[in-house]
């Protein structure tokens, strides 16, 4: 009779998602995923890898192996600042930045990103602003992001906002495109229609 508590430190094949790698590889920029030789150039060149729970090299390996849950819940994908250093340096032509984007979108679709994490909120607020006006309105977008994630920070950020206003670097009104902004909404709706047709 053993009272030794054990926990598997690895995953068995049946616990992995066998379709995960293919679903990412099928997206534009994902095509070379399976060519990775695990050299680690991406991780060593990444300026944010020191903050990541899994380095880019590990994310690539885990994506290929089907560790969907771990990959999508990782902070790595949200720390990627899209500087494209890994993409340029990869000796196997893997577009690591594109793969990070694909993983971000997947995490948002499956709603597994960290709660109150500002990046997905920022992305969504940005999306809304563009849909309405055809333009991104930095001031409003960032204000909403702060209010929705860390309202107490609003006070801390007000000094910066005021300084920008005084220097004419933040518009009080809303920036709109010339012409008919509803064309943007129609264009976006049509993309959805066309994508459905294509599938």
């Amino acid at each position, binding site marked *: 009779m053993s009272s030794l508590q054990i926990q598997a430190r690895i995953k068995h094949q049946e616990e992995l998602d066998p379709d995960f790698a293919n679903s990412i590889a099928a997206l534009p920029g994902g095509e070379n995923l399976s060519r990775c030789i695990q050299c680690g150039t991406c991780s060593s060149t990444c300026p*944010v890898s020191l903050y990541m729970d899994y380095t880019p090299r590990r994310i690539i390996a885990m994506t290929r192996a089907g560790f969907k849950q771990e990959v999508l819940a990782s902070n790595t994908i949200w720390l990627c600042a899209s500087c494209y250093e890994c993409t340029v340096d990869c000796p196997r032509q893997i577009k690591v930045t594109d793969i990070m984007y694909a993983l971000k979108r997947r995490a948002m679709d499956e709603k597994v990103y960290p709660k109150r994490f500002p990046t997905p909120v920022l992305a969504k607020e940005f999306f809304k602003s*563009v849909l309405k006006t055809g333009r991104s309105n930095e001031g409003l977008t960032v204000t909403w992001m702060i209010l929705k994630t860390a309202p107490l920070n609003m006070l801390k950020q007000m000094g910066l906002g005021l300084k920008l206003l005084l220097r004419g*670097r933040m518009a009080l009104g809303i*920036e709109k495109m010339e012409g008919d902004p509803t064309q*943007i909404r129609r*264009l*976006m709706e049509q*993309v959805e229609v066309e994508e459905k047709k294509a599938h």
Partner: protein
Amino acid sequence: MRYLYYPGCSLKGTGKAYDESLVAVFDKLGMDVKELPGWNCCGATAYMSVDETKAFALAARNLALAEQENGSDPIHLIAPCAACYLVLNKVQKYMGEYGHLREVIANSLKAVGLNYHGTVKVRHPLDVFVNDIGLDKIKAAVSHPLKGLKVASYYGCQVVRPYADFDNQYNPQTMDQLMKALGAEAVDWPLKTRCCGGTLTGTVEEAGLRMSYILLKEASKRGANIMATACPLCQFNLECYQGKMRGTFGDSIDLPVAFFTQIMGRAFGLEAKRIGLQRLFVPVKAAPAMA
């Protein structure tokens, strides 16, 4: 060469001084560049994280609008913001590489009465100034040589990576050459293309703030008395957070960070207001020849 100008959203907001100084410099160099009528947001980094195809369609709409202005020569669309430059180039490239994407975008554009045949060339102003206008013409326009100004040229990520073919991706030179042509000294430093933190400064401040701080510290250590940037987000991160950096890192960092076009404007003798010098947080007056 026929040019159109695509400012992008940031140049109408936090990067207004980039817009003002770029337009003033075009004018001074006798370039006829008008703004692309009816332009919309390029799709940028954030949009890409929500829906990639939609982000590409947004970018492509701008290319389609630019193509409508084609005469006998194809349009060269000047995109000064690093993110816009990248996204516009990316959609151009990906529409060529991925047939499925091309079809979805072409059909969607058609539904709103637009077409794009892929003839527009997306250019960064650094490329246009150095390779089209030429350093000789730039030199000839200098009325106030920037004697004593030591410039750390900071290119950032997305101007040179991954699509730019006009400069070296690891050790770019165009901005340095421009600064020398203006009579300034180009500081040799190794972090020219290291990321400033991008949107992380706003979302994960601990990470973003330090990334910008590292750049400023290194540039100062190498003797720079000003940093030149080519991207509105880099400029914002590197300049507007210096107060916070002083508090966080207990350092007396205090380095003016200006758009490279503002520095050009200064050397061309343009009025401070016309090139948006009053919009900067860290006054450039302290730097030689910038007062």
